[in-house]
């Protein structure tokens, strides 16, 4: 029982975004042909509608800007004004402002101030010269970022597609049920229909997922400018190579990963690559090479940032991590190279010696890790001192469907995304030892701590988990080894159910604050199954280990 107001608001937003999108399209047509009659008529009509709707919603300023633009397009159409010169700039400023206002409405934020713009529009309508600021310097980075944004119309479609995807998820569940029933009843006609339904819904699911895919190029193409800016601020020479722009990925994933990628690229230019002078001293070509590439690997998309700079100084990172209290001086020497590099992405770690205005904005590479965690992605680091560094983001192609392993604890199923699973083991008590109260097993000559998933899930309070005793271990233990940030952890479960592709639904408020669960999925039986978040589980284990 949605209220009328809510409904009106949603309708308003949907239509406003659509109008805005058409406005931009017609404006570019007008730029090519200033007398395009149909475009002028459309702009006039769109402004008129936006004005009326905005006023009905009580967005006075939004209505006023649209009103002035409507008047202006009316005048242009009636040949009383010409689409040229300063007027064009005011019109563009006006339409940009409409865009930001509409976005502000959508985000429930106060609308930006439009006083100066309205004054200018008023002047232009009256045939006077607008007050324009001096030719703005080349557009700011923010502006260039904004232009790179995927259009707002797509945003609406994505929302609708989310809905569609949910429905398809439901359909697939019922399909599986019908399939099971058909097999039980053993009716050939029913079975054939069920199989047909199976294929169709599979196709439908892929079509919906496919509709959400965009080329990685949308994001990559925005980097030449970023790199040029950072390089010139750092007084470095950088040659950027892009590849794999056609690789397809879910639009929401690309959006979530944008900041992380920006961060890695800035980091590579300001910390990875050396100055020309230092490069020559090291016997390297003077110009630094930076490569941004996308490729597919099985069902994943890899985004790679590769530089031929100085490489990661593992020992320096190790020292710094001790300094920052991320690891103890005692534990530090035992960490291998990969484990040390993983520390770069811990919150509070920043290798920057001095804070530059480019990448030392008080945030470290941990933003990269956070973005990846939220997507269930992985990070790979590869580096050689003096030769260069490669960061690889391993991303799911689609946000919706993930491979997962279903396990059972206390007669309830839980799903663990395959992205974070290493292997499954069946261990005899003899293969498990107790070290400092923690169960440990050895896998490829490395020790892996083990913890009953039941304890992690059901032990309340902040106290450490109870110490494990050899006598508690009875019979074969089913262990799922998960991997997070190069740390492995063995989760002891009651049993493994099966491997399956799942559609993850996010937990809605108020339960979304429990970070242990990455979402929910519905099993073929219609049963609700929680999806475990491996990063959160690993962190919980670290804080609660005995």
């Amino acid at each position, binding site marked *: 029982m949605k209220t009328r107001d809510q409904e*009106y608001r949603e309708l308003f937003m949907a239509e406003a975004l659509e109008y805005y999108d058409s406005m931009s399209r017609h404006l570019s047509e007008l730029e090519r042909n200033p007398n395009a009659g149909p475009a002028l008529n459309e702009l006039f*009509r769109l402004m*008129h509608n936006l*004005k009326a709707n905005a006023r009905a919603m009580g967005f006075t300023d939004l209505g006023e800007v649209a*009103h002035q633009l409507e008047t202006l397009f009316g005048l242009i159409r009636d040949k009383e004004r010409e689409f040229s010169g300063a007027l064009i700039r005011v019109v563009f400023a006006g339409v940009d402002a409409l865009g930001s206002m509409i976005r502000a409405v959508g985000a429930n934020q106060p609308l930006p101030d439009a006083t100066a713009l309205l004054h200018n529009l008023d002047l232009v309508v009256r045939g006077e010269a607008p007050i324009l600021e001096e030719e703005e310097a080349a557009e700011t980075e923010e502006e260039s970022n904004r232009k790179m944004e995927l259009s707002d119309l797509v945003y609406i479609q994505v929302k609708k597609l989310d809905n569609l995807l949910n429905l398809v998820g439901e359909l697939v569940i019922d399909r599986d049920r019908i399939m099971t029933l058909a097999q039980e009843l053993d009716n050939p006609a029913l079975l054939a229909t069920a199989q047909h339904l199976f294929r169709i819904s599979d196709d439908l699911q892929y079509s919906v997922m496919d509709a959400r895919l965009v080329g990685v190029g949308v994001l990559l193409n925005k980097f030449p400018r970023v790199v040029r800016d950072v390089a010139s601020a750092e007084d470095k020479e950088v040659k950027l190579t892009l590849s794999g722009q056609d690789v397809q990925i879910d639009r929401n994933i690309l959006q979530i990963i944008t900041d992380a990628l920006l961060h890695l690229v800035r980091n590579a230019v300001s910390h990875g690559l050396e100055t020309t002078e230092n490069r020559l001293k090291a016997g390297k070509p003077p110009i630094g090479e930076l490569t941004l590439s996308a490729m597919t690997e099985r069902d994943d998309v890899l985004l790679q940032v590769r530089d031929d700079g100085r490489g990661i100084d593992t020992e320096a990172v190790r020292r710094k991590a001790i300094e920052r209290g991320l690891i103890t001086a005692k534990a530090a020497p035992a960490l291998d190279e990969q484990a040390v590099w993983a520390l770069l992405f811990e919150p509070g770690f920043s290798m920057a010696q001095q804070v530059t205005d480019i990448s030392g904005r008080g945030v470290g590479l941990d933003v990269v890790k956070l973005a990846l965690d939220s997507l269930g992605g992985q990070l790979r680091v590869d580096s050689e001192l003096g030769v260069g560094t490669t960061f690889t983001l391993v991303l799911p192609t689609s946000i919706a469907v993930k491979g997962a392993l279903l396990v059972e604890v206390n007669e309830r199923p839980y799903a663990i995304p395959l992205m974070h699973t290493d292997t499954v083991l069946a261990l005899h008590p003899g293969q498990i030892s107790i070290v400092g109260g923690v169960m440990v097993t050895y896998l490829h000559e490395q020790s892996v701590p083990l913890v009953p998933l039941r304890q992690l899930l059901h032990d309340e309070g902040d106290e450490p988990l109870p110490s494990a005793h050899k006598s508690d271990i009875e019979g074969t233990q089913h262990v799922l080894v998960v991997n997070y940030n190069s740390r492995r952890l063995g989760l002891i479960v009651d049993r493994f159910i099966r491997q399956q592709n799942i559609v993850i639904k996010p937990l809605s408020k108020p339960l979304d604050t429990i970070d242990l669960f990455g979402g929910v999925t519905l099993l073929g039986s219609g049963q609700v199954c929680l999806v475990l978040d491996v990063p959160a589980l690993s962190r919980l284990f670290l804080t609660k280990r005995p």
Partner: protein
Amino acid sequence: MNKRILIVDDSFYMRTMLKNMLTDAGYEVVGEAANGAQALEMAASTEPDLITLDVILPDNTGLDVLKSLRQIQPSAKVVMCSAVGQEVIVTEAIENGAMAYIVKPFSEEKVLEIVGAALQNGASEQTA
């Protein structure tokens, strides 16, 4: 019998709002048209008692639609709807047989008042 109304507006938002207001007040909304062609088609097929007509429409101007509506459905009362700023068109609309004019954004009260008055006016003409 409930009076039957056809809504013509190119904004889905506006149509929804008008429809809710009119339906709540006990009118029957027999159709919603988003452009002139649809409006004429629906006016012919639904024979409404009253038509609310937006003055700015995508394919035709509202005025052209009004003129055609007067021909194909002369008994239907037409109430023009428009945001302020297009008063010239509205004056012309009244000259071409529109009964009244509602200014967007409108209050529910105003809409019902104007629609009610327009319908009543028509009734008295017919009975006179």
